């Protein structure tokens, strides 16, 4: 009970601080949200600048804006984007569904395949097949994400002409969407997979040498039985926390995939908002991502305590 309370209070404090940072950072940036609002060669008169500023609430004291910001958060109102001419929440939710469509399958397949393959690789590390797969995933692990995206796009979409070059869909049918998403999802899956693979491999290598694994062998369990009955779950424990942290990274990190594949998801949204100093969108999306990361962490905590009785007990 007290542990849960402690964790919860920690998360709440963290949230408050992050939300505050979220308010401060965009405002500390140079450049004005008014710039880039209207186009490169548009001339503004001073009076319309003042008008716009007051409309956007930028002329009010910072503290008032800060209070407003909290008021908005508590009322689930993320503000209004003058760059995108819509309420931020609406924009984010429209984008989020696509990013989730991109990220969730990648994370799941990457997570599941990564842990299983990684566990096998760690368990039978001497095997040449495992060595080859380790080398492969290590290479992916070491490649800058955008680079892999572009290479994949060049090879599969351009040279081989299997997949479309951009966007989420052409016609909007499920098949069409699946076709468009295939390559981005594949690339992201590979990334997620390679990381989980590496971590799981290390984790299993470590657990492999534990005494309980030796005892399982002494009890007469054979190879895979030891791995999947005993080692796997233990080795999985650290991964759960990582998956949770990954979640935030994936949401914002889909950025490269989205830029390369011209997908209007959260990543692209943040990048654009950043370049155009669209505070409300920046704040809103950071906020949502933070919330998701925090809830993913919370979820991981819960899952962890379900898997690890030691946590429950203390």
């Amino acid at each position, binding site marked *: 009970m007290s542990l849960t309370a402690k964790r919860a209070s920690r998360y709440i404090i963290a949230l408050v601080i992050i939300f505050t940072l979220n308010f401060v950072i965009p405002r500390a940036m140079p450049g004005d949200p008014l710039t880039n609002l209207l186009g490169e060669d548009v001339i503004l008169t001073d009076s319309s600048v003042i008008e716009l500023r007051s409309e956007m609430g930028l002329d009010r004291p910072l503290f008032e804006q800060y209070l407003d910001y909290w008021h908005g958060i508590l009322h689930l109102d993320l503000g209004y984007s003058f760059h995108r001419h819509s309420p931020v929440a609406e924009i984010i939710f429209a984008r989020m569904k696509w990013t989730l469509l991109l990220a969730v399958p990648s994370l799941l397949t990457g997570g599941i395949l990564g842990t299983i393959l990684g566990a096998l690789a760690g368990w039978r590390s001497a095997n040449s097949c495992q060595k080859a797969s380790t080398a492969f995933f290590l*290479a992916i692990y070491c490649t800058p*994400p955008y*680079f892999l995206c572009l290479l994949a796009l060049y090879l599969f979409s351009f040279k081989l002409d299997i997949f479309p070059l951009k966007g989420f869909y052409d016609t909007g049918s499920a098949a069409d969407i699946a076709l468009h998403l295939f390559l981005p999802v594949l690339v992201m899956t590979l990334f997620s997979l390679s990381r989980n693979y590496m971590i799981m491999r*290390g984790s299993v290598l470590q657990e492999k040498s534990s005494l309980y694994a030796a005892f399982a062998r002494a009890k007469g369990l054979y190879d895979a039985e030891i791995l999947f009955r005993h080692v796997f779950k233990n080795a999985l424990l650290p991964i759960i*926390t990582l998956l949770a942290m990954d979640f935030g990274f994936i949401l914002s*990190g889909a950025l490269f995939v989205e830029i390369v594949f011209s997908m209007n998801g959260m990543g692209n949204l943040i990048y654009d908002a950043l370049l155009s100093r669209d505070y409300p969108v*920046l704040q809103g999306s*950071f906020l949502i991502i933070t919330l998701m990361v925090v809830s993913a*962490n919370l979820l991981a905590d819960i899952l962890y305590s379900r898997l*690890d009785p030691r946590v429950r007990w203390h």
Partner: protein
Amino acid sequence: MIPDATLCASPEIMPEAAECPDENKRQCCKREYSRTERISMSLCSAREVLRMQKMSLVGLLLFLSFVLMAVFSEELAPFDPWMRFEPYLLPGSEHLLGTNDMGNDILSELIYSTRISLFVGFAAALMATLIGTIVGLLAGYYKGMTDEILMGITDIFLMIPQIPLIIVIASFLRPSFWIVALLMGALWWTSTARVVRSRTLQVREMGFVQASRALGFSDLHIIFTDVLPNTCHVIAPKFLLSIASAMIAEASISFLGLGDPTMKSWGTMINFAFTRGGFINGYWWWYLTPGLCITLFVLCVVLMGFAWEEQERTNQRLE
């Protein structure tokens, strides 16, 4: 997608619960092995270690050759990388990798870029390791409130969406390699801090720390001469892995056009190759070679880091 988590992601990240909280439990968790068992266990992994070391040897050799490349750029590069020839020359005997849009010799550029790229990697990793180590040591050694606060801060840093934040701040401050390096360092110390903390928690309970305390040594003396040397082996692989993630991040930031284009780094080379038609024209020697260099360098660093971690795992079995 984001390189850091990949690397920060080592199995050491475990909630506190995994550590034994009270005296009795800690004793139950402490591994006690007789000397023969230690020997036999060290031997059991000797082959594994040897194999790992073969890989890390490859990594080390590669690493050294990159470092040499950075140090002796002037001697190694066939031309001054800022010297202009005909632009867009194809690879040939004069210019092994051709020339870029400015007519710079790509091979020379590649060699010179090693410097900045390595610098960013090292500076960021150094910074991250430094902060992470100090935070981890203090939190682990003093425990209690200090630990609570420091780990709370660590949690916050972990939950901040990092890449966007780097982009925000990198565009806020004017992009220079120093800023990018320092930024990444300032954001990515968390995993090191966690690892160092959990190791410090272990070490501070070890007999020799207690003995030092009983002998009357100051906390500072104990932290630096007893605890730190015994956490070095978990810090070192983290340091290596931080180098790797910093380099990937630098390349990614450059790709987004937020790097420092006035300096020659692999990231900016790729950036220019993409924005100046290298990719579209299929001049693979222009964009693929720096990409390969990044991958290769990161690979050798990661290999070394893994080998180190592996050895660490073996050593842990002995302790």
